[in-house]
């Protein structure tokens, strides 16, 4: 029968239950088809306003939200940190109040501080969508990863997913671990100990020191982006050494199941966490992730823009 989405905001995967995630994945499949139509637009969100508030650099996620909003006929406004009033010293609360005064229906926010989306949800009437807050969560990335995995693997129960590299600093890894665990998949992680957070095991994750052990028999191999500043801050000796021990290349990928898929949240450092042969190889679903990104964000905006401001 009819399922309902009980949430007014998408702040993180943590707040969602498995049934919420499945509802979003099913809806995303429908929205995928709209992007393949000759006229890639439906009138559903006509007259709704979506503000993309990106206080941290992003091209893919912001573009993806913008396309998603436009394919649903919403008016999408982009605000970024450079050129915004935050560089003129305005506080986040003042910015929130000013945005609120313009009556947006949805505010999509990315910020380097964890908890920004939660903060805005307490001060704005609009629905808030977290597009990445510090090292906390990036829920739409996890949802698009789940959608991509389901397309290839059909179900999550018993699936072995290896998440590799800089897990500590990755909000993608955190959201993916939360989502995939809720859906019944088993997570293994591997990376330099300096880039693995303490207490991962409490999330039900299996931790490996060697990348080979994590990849062996995996159904899904996910390489995470290694941020350049990790080397500068002394957490790893260098990109070349990282690549030698933790980069996903063809010989390591051969340890995974024969039908394993390779994922990367982007943007990639070719030759560091992932080799070009793997990134462009037959098992790579990296560009499908991007396609699903638009569909997942359409599903989110559809659910958010129509939600009532009183729960």
């Amino acid at each position, binding site marked *: 029968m*009819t*399922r*309902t*989405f009980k949430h007014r905001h998408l702040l993180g995967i943590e707040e969602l239950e498995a049934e919420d995630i499945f509802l979003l994945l*099913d*809806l995303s499949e*429908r*929205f995928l*088809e*709209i992007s393949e*139509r*000759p*006229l890639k*637009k*439906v*009138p*559903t969100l006509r007259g709704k306003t979506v503000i993309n508030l990106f206080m941290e650099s992003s091209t893919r996620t912001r573009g993806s939200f913008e396309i998603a909003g436009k394919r*649903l006929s919403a008016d999408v406004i982009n605000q970024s940190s450079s050129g915004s009033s935050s560089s003129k010293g305005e506080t986040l609360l003042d910015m929130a109040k000013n945005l609120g005064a313009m009556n947006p229906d949805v505010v999509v926010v990315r910020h380097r501080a964890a908890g920004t989306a939660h903060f805005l949800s307490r001060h704005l009437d609009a629905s808030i969508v977290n597009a990445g807050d510090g090292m906390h969560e990036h829920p739409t990335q996890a949802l698009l990863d789940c959608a991509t995995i389901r397309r290839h693997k059909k179900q999550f129960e018993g699936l072995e997913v290896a998440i590799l590299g800089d897990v500590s600093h990755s909000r993608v890894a955190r959201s993916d671990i939360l989502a995939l665990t809720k859906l019944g998949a088993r997570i293994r992680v591997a990376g330099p100990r300096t880039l693995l957070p303490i207490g991962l095991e409490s999330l039900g994750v299996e931790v490996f020191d060697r990348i080979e052990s994590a990849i062996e028999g995996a159904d899904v191999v996910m390489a995470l982006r290694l941020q350049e500043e990790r080397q500068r801050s002394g957490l790893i000796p260098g990109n070349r050494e990282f690549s030698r021990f933790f980069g996903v290349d063809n010989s390591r990928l051969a340890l995974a199941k024969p039908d394993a898929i390779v994922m990367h949240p982007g943007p990639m450092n070719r030759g560091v966490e992932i080799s070009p042969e793997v990134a462009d190889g037959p098992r790579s679903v990296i560009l499908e992730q991007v396609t699903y990104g638009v569909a997942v964000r359409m599903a989110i905006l*559809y*659910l958010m*823009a*129509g939600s*009532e401001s009183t729960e």
Partner: protein
Amino acid sequence: MTPSEGNGGLVERKVVLDVVGIENTLESLTRELIEAHPPDTDILVVGIHTGGAHLASRIASLLAKNGVSVELGMIDITLYRDDVFIGLPRPEVGPTQLPSSIAGKTIILVDDVLFTGRTVRSALDELIDYGRPHCVQLAVLVDRGHRELPIQADFVGVSIETTRQHSVRVYLTESGSPEDRVILYESENRS
């Protein structure tokens, strides 16, 4: 859903069509369609999700039996509704499957019940977004009146007198009903 359960305060008034009635009605609709179109017409039969889609598929098979081959498609109009955000729970979005081009085709739009005409309005808007068909004609199993828009069917199975308090439901085996039936209900607490 079966006729006896889950009708939320609705009382069965009468059986509009039974299994044989539906079969005969679809056959006569099919005959009308054949008579109305020259043999070489490029016909696309499009059902409105879900009831109309099942009927469209039956009509396409009946046409094929009579030597008329047509294309078959379906549309879900949820994203084109004028009330998509009025009232909860939010409707789920169903599948839309149309050929890559509908330009120049004669489209037979099929729905189970024609009531206010708002569903047909949404379907027309969606079809036009796919291209410019030669024409769109409407075929319905049941016309129950009470239009709120200037929309009429070109091919009507049966027309019935109803009040606004009535509810007309079409049960088809494709949707999991034990047998095909069209039933007229009346609201229990009628004012």
